[in-house]
């Protein structure tokens, strides 16, 4: 079980590429690092519930992420590729999140890897 203040990484996994699925972990958080705010409780795993399969209870956590960092981590090589494809998007659609702004998201335990 995770505790308040634990640093975690959201799994960099894309079950969508392997077949039909129902995932409650937003794409923009896959592979991102955050901090556990608190445990919200245990809930039946929606990934099974959605397909009427037996669904065991899993711990659900509120996890906090630095918001500007989610959109500003692209390295130089990524930017070159993106500029070729969607030049105006990158130039004009910067995030308006300010320093210190955060995003808090409900994530299930099986999507979180504890960091040292």
């Amino acid at each position, binding site marked *: 079980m995770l505790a308040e203040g634990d640093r975690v990484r959201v799994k960099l996994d894309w079950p969508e590429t392997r077949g039909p699925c129902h995932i*409650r*972990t*937003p794409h*923009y958080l896959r592979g991102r690092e955050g901090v556990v705010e608190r445990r*919200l*409780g245990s*809930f039946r795993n*929606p990934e099974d519930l959605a397909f009427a399969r037996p669904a065991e209870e899993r711990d*659900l956590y509120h996890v906090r992420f630095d*918001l500007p960092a*989610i*959109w500003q981590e692209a390295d130089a090589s990524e930017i070159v590729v993106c500029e070729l494809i969607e030049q105006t998007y990158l130039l004009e*659609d910067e*995030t*308006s*999140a*300010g320093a*210190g*702004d*955060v*995003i*808090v*998201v*409900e*994530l*299930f335990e099986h999507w979180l890897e504890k960091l040292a």
Partner: protein
Amino acid sequence: MNVLEADSEKLLEAVLGLLKGKGVVTPEEITARIASTDSASPAQGARMVARAWTDPEYRALMLRDGTVAAEAMDIPMRGLPPLGVLENTDEVHNLVVCTLCSCYPRAVLGYPPFWFKSAAYRARAVRDPRGLIAEWGTTLPEGMQLRVVDSTADYRWMVLPRRPHGTEGWSVEQLAAIVREGDMIGVTIPSV
């Protein structure tokens, strides 16, 4: 024919018949649920907010357990996802979105406004949150932290806004009347 192509009234009748026939729900429970769905509106959440502004014990309860706090105001919550309440303070402003679909605390806020479900709102709330709320005329004081809450799973979230200045001595009813839907989503701030 699949379910999506079925005549909706016939489908409803068939499902209701099965639910009643198998004893899953009683006709009284269905009537009660229809009544509670019809009565759900932002006015319910506003009653909670106004009471929290005037009753510190209720405020503490609301922040600890939104479901129990709603039930204490006779808002039916049985069988619904747990309600979490996000407190706006002098330092923090909360904004609620569901980027994956349209999760919304319907028992206390009613049906979501059309824009809450739009792709534009859902995308901009996480990428361009300050630009987004500026379109409602909402500008946060310098130094105030914005906390975007993406409602992705089993909780439903509402914002407890700050009580505006100029409302000293107001009754709970007067206070409830100034709390709007957007104030409890976080796109606006109550004002007088």
